[in-house]
C-alpha cells in the first residue's frame, strides 16, 4: 500500500504510540487527583504542554489548550471570541477555508453576523488588498488558514496579522494551522497572531486530539463548560494518552521540519514533474513556491477524479480528489472553484500528500502507474476532439 493522503490523516508514529501506551494501561489515574498514583499522568500533561508550546513557538505554556480535534479548536476560538466581542458583528475569512471553519461562519451568518469571504487568485493566493479593505472598526474576527489542505498554498499569516492589527488593533486574528502543523515552522511569539488551532492526527499523533494556542492577551469563553481543566476554558477530564502522544508527535514533527523542507519536497517535486512530463492532459493546479512541501494538486483534463482514485486504489495507491463524486455532495471542491480552475480539469483533480514515511520507491511506482491509468480513462472519455486538440498543443 502506498499512502499519499497525509493531508487527510497520517499514520501514528511508533514512538508516539510508545509514549501513549502506559496511560492506556497501568497509569490510568485522573491527573487532577491528589494521590501519588496521579503524578505520572499529571506529569505527562505537563511534558506534552511544553512540547506543544515549543512546537508552536509560543512564549508560555499557559497559552496552550488541549482539545479533541481541529474542528473543536476552531469552534473554541471562533465562538469563544465572538462571545467576548458583543456588539461587533463583522467577520472576515477566506473562500478557501476548511469546511469546519466555513460552516461555523455560515452558522454565525444565520445569527445575524456579516461575513466577508476573501478571494484567491488562480494560484490559490489570497488577495491581501481586498482583505485590508474589508477590515472595519466593528470587525470582531479575521480568520485565515495557515496552509490550504487541498493545494498546499501557504498564506502569509504573519503579514496578515500586521495588516489586521495595523488597521484595527482590537480585532482578533485566528489562524487555522491544521495543515501547516508539522510541515512548516511556526513561531507564533514573533507574530501578532492571536490564536492558532492544530490537530494531532495530521502530524502522526492519533485522531481525537488537538490544540489551540491562545495569546495571553485574548479573552475567550469556553465551548465546553464544567470543571477546572485547561484553566477553566475547556472542561472535561484530560485525554492523557492522546495528549501525551500529541506532545511526542509535536516534538518529532519539529525535529523533522528540515527533512520536510528538503527530502519530502524533493519527492513531491519528483512526483509532480514525473506526472506532468508524461501526461499531456495533466496540469498543475497551483505551482507557487510558497506551498507546504508535501502537497501537490494535479488536474487531469476530461477525466473524472473518482474514477482515477478507484484505479489508483486498485494499484494500492491512496490519494484524494476534489471531485464532486467522491464527496457525495455533487459539487466539486470549493477551493478549486475559488481558484477558477477550468471545469475541464475541475472534476479530475487529484491531491497527493506525502509524509516523512513516504519512500522514493513509492513515488517511482506512482509515476510509473499514473500514465497507464490516465491513458485508459482518456480513451473512455467522450471529449475525444477536445483531447486531440490538447494533445497537439502539448505534443
Amino acid at each position: 500500500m502506498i499512502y499519499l493522503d497525509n493531508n487527510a490523516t497520517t499514520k501514528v508514529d511508533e514512538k508516539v504510540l510508545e509514549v501513549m501506551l502506559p496511560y492506556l494501561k497501568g497509569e490510568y489515574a485522573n491527573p487532577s487527583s491528589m494521590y501519588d498514583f496521579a503524578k505520572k499522568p499529571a506529569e505527562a500533561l505537563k511534558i506534552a504542554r511544553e512540547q506543544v508550546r515549543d512546537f508552536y513557538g509560543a512564549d508560555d505554556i499557559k497559552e496552550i489548550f488541549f482539545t479533541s480535534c481541529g474542528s473543536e479548536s476552531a469552534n473554541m476560538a471562533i465562538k469563544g471570541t465572538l462571545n467576548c466581542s458583543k456588539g461587533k458583528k463583522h467577520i472576515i475569512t477566506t473562500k478557501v477555508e476548511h469546511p469546519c471553519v466555513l460552516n461555523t461562519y455560515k452558522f454565525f451568518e444565520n445569527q445575524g453576523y456579516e461575513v466577508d469571504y476573501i478571494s484567491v487568485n488562480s494560484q490559490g493566493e489570497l488577495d491581501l488588498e481586498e482583505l485590508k479593505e474589508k477590515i472595519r472598526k466593528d470587525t470582531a474576527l479575521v480568520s485565515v488558514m495557515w496552509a490550504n489542505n487541498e493545494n498546499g498554498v501557504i498564506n502569509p499569516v504573519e503579514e496578515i496579522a500586521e495588516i489586521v492589527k495595523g488597521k484595527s488593533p482590537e480585532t482578533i486574528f485566528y489562524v487555522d494551522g491544521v495543515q501547516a502543523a508539522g510541515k512548516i515552522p511556526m513561531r507564533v511569539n514573533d507574530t501578532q497572531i492571536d490564536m492558532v488551532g492544530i490537530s494531532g492526527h495530521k502530524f502522526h499523533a492519533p485522531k481525537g486530539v488537538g490544540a489551540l494556542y491562545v495569546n495571553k492577551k485574548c479573552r475567550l469563553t469556553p465551548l465546553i463548560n464544567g470543571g477546572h481543566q485547561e484553566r477553566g476554558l475547556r472542561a472535561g477530564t484530560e485525554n492523557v494518552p492522546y495528549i501525551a502522544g500529541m506532545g511526542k508527535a509535536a516534538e518529532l514533527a519539529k525535529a523533522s521540519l528540515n527533512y520536510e523542507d528538503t527530502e519530502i519536497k524533493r519527492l513531491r517535486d519528483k512526483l509532480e514533474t514525473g506526472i506532468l512530463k508524461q501526461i499531456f492532459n495533466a496540469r498543475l493546479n497551483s505551482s507557487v513556491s510558497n506551498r507546504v512541501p508535501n502537497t501537490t494538486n494535479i488536474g487531469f483534463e476530461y477525466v473524472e477524479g473518482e474514477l482515477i482514485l478507484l484505479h489508483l486504489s486498485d494499484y494500492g495507491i491512496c490519494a484524494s480528489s476534489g471531485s464532486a463524486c467522491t464527496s457525495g455532495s455533487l459539487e466539486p471542491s470549493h477551493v478549486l472553484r475559488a481558484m477558477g480552475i477550468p471545469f475541464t480539469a475541475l472534476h479530475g483533480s487529484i491531491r497527493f500528500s506525502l509524509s516523512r514515511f513516504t519512500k522514493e520507491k513509492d513515488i517511482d511506482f506512482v509515476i510509473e502507474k499514473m500514465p497507464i491509468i490516465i491513458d485508459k480513462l482518456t480513451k473512455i472519455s467522450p471529449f475525444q476532439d477536445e483531447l486531440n486538440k490538447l494533445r497537439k498543443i502539448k505534443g
Partner: protein
Amino acid sequence: MWDYSEKVLDHYRNPRNVGKIDDADLIGEAGSLACGDSLKLFIKLDGEKIKDAKFLTFGCGSAVASSSILTEMIIGKTLDEVRKITNKDIADELGGLPQEKMHCSVMGQEALEDALKKYYGDDVEIGFRKESKDKVVCTCFNVTENQIWEAIKINGLKTVEEVTNYTKAGGACGRCKSVIQDILDTYYKKQEAGSKLTQTQKILKIGKVIEQEISPQLQKDGGDIELIDIEGNKVFVKLIGVCSSCKNASMTLKNFVESILKTKVDKNIVVEQVL
C-alpha cells in the same frame, strides 16, 4: 468509500464496448462536462434490431459501469424492447447502486432516450418521459419537472434528498429544493392536509400540536411555550421559562416549533414570537 457491488467494480475496471461507432445510426448524449458526468452512446442498427452499441463516458466509477452495462443490455434487442428500459433496470442489472449514485443510472437512461428520440421523433413517449413543454427546475444540473416527476414515480422517492440522489436536482446551489418539495407534495397529494382544514379546525389542530408535541419537548429543557393568537397562517407564541431568555430562541422557533407545525398542520405556517 462507496459500497459498490462486485458487478459495478467489474464494469468500471473492465468496461465493455468502449469506443465510438463511426457509422452509427443513432447517437445519444446526456450530461455535461461542467456537471461532472457525461455519456455518449452509439447504436448501430440492423433493421429494428440493435446490432452493436458502444459508449464513451466522463464520470465516476458508477457512471462508467452504468454506461457499460447499458450497452450489454441493449445489444441484440429490438428498439421496441429497449424503449422500456428505465434507470431502475440499469441499477438493478448492476446489482444496485449507492443511493447517492442513482443519478448515474438516470444518465444512462437519458442517453438511451436521446438516441431513440432520433428514431421515433420528439413526440413519441419513450421510456418514462414525455418531452413536451418541460419546465427546467434545477438550473445547475438542467433537470426538468418531468424528469423529477418520473424519477419519483419509478423509484418511489419520498424526500428532496432522495430526488437529489437520483436526478442531481438541488445538489448544487439548492435553490430549487422548495420546488422539488412542491413536486413531491403534489405527487403525494399531501397538500390537501393543510388546505382542506377550515380556520377553526386549523386553530384546534395548532393548539393540539403545541400542547402534545412541542410543549413537552421544551419542558424537558426547563422552558415552555404558550399559544397567544392565530391570524391566518401566522401563529403568535410566547416562550416561557429558560426558553424566554435563551439566545437561541429564534432558532428554537424556526427550526423546531415552526417546522413541526409546518409538517403537522400547514406548510405555510409562520411562527412569530411575542415578547
